[in-house]
C-alpha cells in the first residue's frame, strides 16, 4: 500500500488542478457560446462522425481511393442543399463538417452537455482521491461516500453514452439526402459509443466490490 500512497496524492492533486482548470474553461466556453449565438463571431464548423449504411466499396471505389483521401459530399439541412468534403477516416465512417446555424446550436448544446458531465465526472474523481488521501492517515480505505461516488461515475458514463447517442440521432434525423461521391448514403449514429457500455459495467462491478469492502470494515468494527 505504501507504494501507492504517493500515486494517490499525485492523482488527488492532478484531479483538483483539472477541476479548477475545468471551471475556468467553463467560463470561456459559455462566453464563446454566447458570442456565437449573438453573431459576434463566425459560425464555426461542427464536425460530426457517422456510420454509413451503404456498400462502402461503391462509394470509395475507383482510383480516387489511392489518389486522394477527400470525397465530395452533399447534404440538405432544413431544405437547404450544402456541399462539402468528407475524409475516409474508417472503412464505414464519414465525417460531415457543417457550418449551418441549426448545426451550430446543436453543436453548442452538445458541447455544454459534455462539459457539465465531464465536470461532474472530475468532481467525483476529486472526491474519491481526496478521501483516499485521507485514508493514508486514518487507515480507513472503505467508505460509503466513495462507493456512492463510484456509482455516480457509472451513471455519468451512462449519461455520456446517452448524450452522444441522442445528439447523433438528432443529426441523423435532420440531415437529409446525403450523397458521398454521388452515391446516396443513409446515416447511422457512430457505433463507437457502444464501447462506453463495457466501461459502465466494469465500473458497476468495481463499485459493488468496494461496497463489499465497506461492509467488511463495518463488520470488523463491530467485532472489535
Amino acid at each position, binding site marked *: 500500500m505504501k507504494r501507492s500512497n504517493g500515486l494517490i496524492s499525485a*492523482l488527488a492533486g492532478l484531479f483538483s488542478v483539472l477541476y479548477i482548470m475545468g471551471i475556468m474553461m467553463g467560463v470561456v466556453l459559455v462566453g464563446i457560446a454566447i458570442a456565437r449565438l449573438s453573431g459576434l463571431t463566425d459560425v464555426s464548423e461542427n464536425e460530426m462522425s457517422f456510420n454509413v449504411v451503404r456498400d462502402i466499396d461503391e462509394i470509395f471505389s475507383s482510383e480516387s481511393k*489511392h489518389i486522394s483521401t477527400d470525397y465530395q459530399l452533399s447534404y440538405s439541412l432544413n431544405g437547404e442543399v450544402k456541399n462539402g468534403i468528407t475524409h475516409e477516416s474508417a472503412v464505414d465512417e464519414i465525417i460531415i463538417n457543417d457550418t449551418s446555424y441549426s448545426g451550430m446550436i446543436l453543436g453548442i448544446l452538445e458541447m455544454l452537455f459534455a462539459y457539465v458531465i465531464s465536470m461532474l465526472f472530475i468532481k467525483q474523481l476529486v472526491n474519491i482521491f481526496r478521501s483516499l488521501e485521507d485514508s493514508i492517515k486514518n487507515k480507513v*480505505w472503505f467508505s460509503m461516500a466513495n462507493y456512492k461516488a463510484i456509482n455516480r461515475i457509472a451513471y455519468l458514463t451512462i449519461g455520456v453514452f446517452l448524450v452522444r447517442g441522442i445528439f447523433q440521432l438528432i443529426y441523423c434525423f435532420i440531415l437529409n439526402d446525403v450523397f458521398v461521391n454521388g452515391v446516396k448514403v443513409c446515416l447511422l449514429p457512430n457505433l463507437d459509443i457502444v464501447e462506453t457500455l463495457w466501461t459502465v459495467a*466494469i465500473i458497476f462491478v468495481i463499485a459493488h*466490490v468496494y461496497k463489499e469492502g465497506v461492509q*467488511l470494515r463495518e463488520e*470488523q468494527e463491530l467485532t472489535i
Partner: protein
Amino acid sequence: MKNSKRLINGLYILFSGSFILASIIGLILIIGMIGVVFCDDEEVHESYVEYQKTKETDSLTYKSRLDVIKEELNDISAGMKDGYESAEKKEQEIERRDSMAMKGSNYHDSIAISKNHKIVAREAGVKTGREIAKIVTNKFNLTSSKEIREEDSAYKKNMNRVEIIFIYLLIFLGIRECKRIFEKLNMLVRKNQWFCYSIYKSLLRLTYIGIVFLVFKISIVVCDMFFINTPLEITGFTLDFIDYIEMIFNIAILFIIAAVYKVGLDMHQEQELTI
C-alpha cells in the same frame, strides 16, 4: 446484489468470447506467418503474386499522383517566373519614373522618394515570395504526409511485424487477465465472497501489461524518429501525446484499484481468522 451477479456473469461471458476470438486471431496470425515464411504452396504463391500486382497498381497510381504534383509544381514555378519578370518590369518602371522625377525636382527629395519606392517594391516582393514558399511547402507537406510512406524500407517492414506480434501478445494477455478476473469473481459470488488473492494478482498483472504497452508504443515512436528521418513522426508523437497521458492515468487508477482491493483482501483474511 442479483444485478451485480448478472453483470459479472455477463462480463465473464463477454471476456470469454473475446478470449476465444483473440485465440483464433492468434492462430490465424501464426499460420499466416508460417505460411509466408516456410510454405511453397501454390495458393500462397498465387496470393503473393496478387499482392504484388495490387502493389504495382498502387505504385502506378502513386506515380500518377507524383506526376500531378510535378505538373502543379511546374505551374507554380512558371507562375513564379512570370511574377518575377513582372516585378522586374515594375522595378524598372519605378526607376525610370524616379529618374524622371529627379530631373524635374529637388535632388534630395527625389532620392527619398526613390528609396521609399524601392522599399515598398522589396516588401511586396518578400510578401509574394513568402506566399509562394508557403504554397510550395504545403504541397510538399501534402506529398510527404499522404504519399511518401516508407513501406518498402526493410526497417519499417520488420518493425511492423514486430509491432503487430507484440501488440497482439499484449492485447491477448490483457484479455486473458480480464477473463481470469471475471471467471474468479463469478465463482466467488456464488459463495458470497468478493476478495481473492488471484484477482489481486491478475489486477497487478493487468497494470504491468499496461505499462509494457505504453513503453512499447513510446519506444516505437522514438525508434521511428531515429531510423526514419521524417519530421512527420514527431508531429505524430505530439498528436498522440494526449492518448499517452490518458493511458498513464488509466494505469495509475488501475494500480490504485489493485491496492485498495489488497486492503479489502487483508480485511477479509483477518475476518476469517477472527471467526
